[in-house]
């Protein structure tokens, strides 16, 4: 039975990458007497970096149906935010997506700034660009580490974690905390860049630009890695847009869309960078997009640091803001490491939000896991879902 499956698989895998390697399950079942079974992967499962469940229906080794189950980390974030004053939501926003905590805090602050009708100083905007990109690098390195373990290699995990520690150090230099930083403020940032921060971050960037090639070499030069990722989890751009998939997974299918460039926020329009886009739409394209994004982030950090330096030491970095927000409806969007995140705020003139909604990219991306996993093998499921880069804190909220 296995040998038969194999020939079927190789036939389709040899074709053009635009085709999804779909196995004709119905015909195969008719040929031989096989039982399908549900395999429940999760919530405690090594592939589910977080707390979620993927129910897959397998026919031998081939996945014929998949159903994601989330909600194991739901704590009613939006409801709790309705009971907190505005400044107290900042540390909560840090804990939405803990792999890149500053992005959500930045998004929250942008939303409230918009509702207040203020524009934070330029210096704060550039510092936040640096912080965002540091967090993007951290998050992508965590993802790279997870790709290593998901494909069965522990070396990639440890090397990526080693590089991640340097970016953690940069976080510590900037604001004193490793992960949940509590750094952005409504109307600016908490503190100016510390002394010699520019020297450190340029050194860190330059080190990273060299060191990342160790890890990339380990993956790209190995044909097993590449063959595990190529031609799996293929989506077309139309499917991708319709299913609401955003971020690197969308850019891996050939849709040239990045909020940092196409809907610029926070002085990203003053910075010159490329948006990597690949057309294949498989796991390998998503991997390549993310790796290229890491290098682009280094480029952005260097430019933003130069702008901060040009603004001088005495430039303001924070505005005083009132505690009450005038009534109204506002939303802001931000390019998360994982996709498009959005916050929608309804304020009623008091010091607490009336409704604060978080749009999490992973929440929508994971709902497409049925389309991603259909027709692949059990061994491909972790490889495909690793490219979604799960972060359950924001998914379940």
């Amino acid at each position: 039975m296995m040998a038969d499956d194999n020939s079927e698989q190789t036939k389709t895998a040899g074709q053009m990458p635009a085709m999804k390697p779909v196995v004709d399950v119905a015909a195969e079942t008719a040929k031989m007497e096989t039982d399908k079974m549900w395999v429940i992967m999760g919530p405690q499962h090594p592939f589910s970096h977080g707390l979620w469940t993927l129910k897959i229906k397998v026919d031998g080794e081939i996945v014929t149906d998949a159903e994601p189950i989330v909600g194991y980390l739901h704590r009613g974030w939006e409801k709790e935010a309705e009971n907190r004053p505005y400044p107290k939501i900042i540390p909560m926003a840090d804990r939405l997506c803990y792999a890149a905590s500053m992005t959500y805090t930045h998004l929250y602050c942008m939303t409230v700034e918009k509702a207040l009708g203020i524009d934070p100083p330029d210096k704060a905007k550039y510092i936040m660009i640096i912080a965002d990109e540091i967090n993007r690098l951290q998050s992508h390195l965590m993802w790279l580490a997870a790709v290593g373990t998901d494909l069965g290699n522990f070396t990639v995990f440890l090397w990526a974690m080693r590089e991640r520690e340097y970016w953690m150090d940069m976080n510590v230099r900037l604001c004193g905390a490793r992960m949940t930083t509590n750094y952005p403020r409504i109307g600016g940032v908490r503190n100016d860049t510390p002394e010699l921060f520019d020297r450190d971050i340029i050194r860190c960037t330059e080190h990273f630009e060299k060191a990342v090639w160790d890890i990339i070499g380990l993956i790209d030069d190995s044909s097993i890695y590449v063959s595990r990722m190529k031609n799996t989890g293929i989506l077309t751009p139309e499917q991708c847009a319709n299913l609401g998939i955003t971020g690197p997974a969308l850019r891996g299918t050939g849709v040239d869309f990045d909020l940092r460039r196409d809907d610029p926020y926070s002085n990203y329009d003053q910075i010159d960078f490329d948006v990597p886009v690949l057309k294949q739409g498989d796991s390998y394209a998503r991997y390549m997009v993310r790796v290229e994004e890491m290098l682009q982030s280094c480029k952005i950090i260097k430019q933003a640091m130069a702008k901060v330096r040009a603004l001088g030491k005495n430039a303001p970095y924070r505005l005083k803001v009132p505690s009450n927000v005038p009534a109204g409806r506002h939303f802001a969007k931000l390019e998360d490491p994982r996709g498009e995140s959005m916050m929608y705020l309804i304020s009623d003139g008091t010091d607490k939000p009336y409704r604060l909604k978080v749009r999490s990219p992973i929440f929508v991306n994971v709902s497409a896991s049925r389309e991603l996993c259909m027709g692949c093998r059990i061994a491909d499921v972790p490889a495909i879902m690793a490219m979604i880069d799960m972060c359950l804190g924001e998914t379940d909220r």
Partner: protein
Amino acid sequence: MPMVYSSILDWVNFPDIMANPYYPFETYNLPYDISQKLWEIIGGTIAWLINLLFPGNPVSEWLVCDMTVNFFALIIFMIVVFLVVFIGILISLWEERKVLGRTMDRRGTMVGMKGFLQCVADGFKTFMKEDTQPRKVDRMTYMWTVSLVIGTSMLIACMIPLSDRWYVVNYNTGLLLIMGLFALAPFFILVSGWSQNNKYSLIGGMRAAEMMISYEIPMLILIATACLMAGTFNIGGIVQAQYDTMPYFIPQCIGFVTFFVCANAEAERTPFDLAEAESELVEGWQTEYAGMKWGLIMLADYMRGYVSCAMITILYLGGWNLPFIGDLNNYVPELVFLLKTWLVFFAMIIVRAALPRVRTDQILNLGWKVFMPLSIINLVIVLLLKMGGVF
């Protein structure tokens, strides 16, 4: 006429082991020699003590007669052979954890003696843990298959000769016997995976059987090729033939590489650890095993790794002989053999550190479309060499 025994030296005298009429081997056997001498000391001391209390009793005489010495020497022989292999395996386990740690830029384990006692700690811990048995398992197969996996692995690990004087059996077809037992484990894994009433272990067991059909045939062809080159199935004969000509990894370089990969698969090490693929099947076929059973399964894994490396050493690296040193080979061939085995294991560790796991269809492709032609090319090369009279 009973002898008069006055001192312990009368009881403990080391006779020539070959002179014993019940000597079970045909040639000189070092571990048997050691164990017989050990029993001379132990049994002779006991006999002397008993003789002190009850002079002229028959038990003392019995304890040092040829047949009894043979019997107890065989028991000690088993222990000696097992202990040496066991310590060798513990060292390879330690080697794996340290080398793996170093390739990953960390120190590896540091528990006692630079981490050597880590495996001892793991062993004691698993011994102490509660032995759970899930409610709905098929009890008989659950217990027996795992015992068989461990038992066969231990058997073949002990059956590998360390030199022409350190062996358990000296069959003319010893190699075939070892390979036959080595290939049994996937069947037990299949049944064990089914018996656990767990879907992960079921898939893991199926994968083990599926994988076996892909690497087993090229591997057997390669073994047959090496035997053809040496002209014998006897392990000692193969090693001697390599000493007389050259180590076989030079003429059979294709076969050497292919066999190395197949041996990796046979020992179920990364990149071929499909049966216990951690990222998708939680722990694969071992998911439901706890405590001592699981500890022994891990030990059996390393035993199979050791056997794989030993097969490579025997078939391609010239076994326990080193070239160009002539008669110096007679001193510690066992140590040379173990060092070569650890060297091969080092290569396996590097492979493990560098590669991810392959997929089921990939290993089938690899087995039938790459290894199979390569092994046949290797066979053709050897045939040409044979016909040309080089060997």
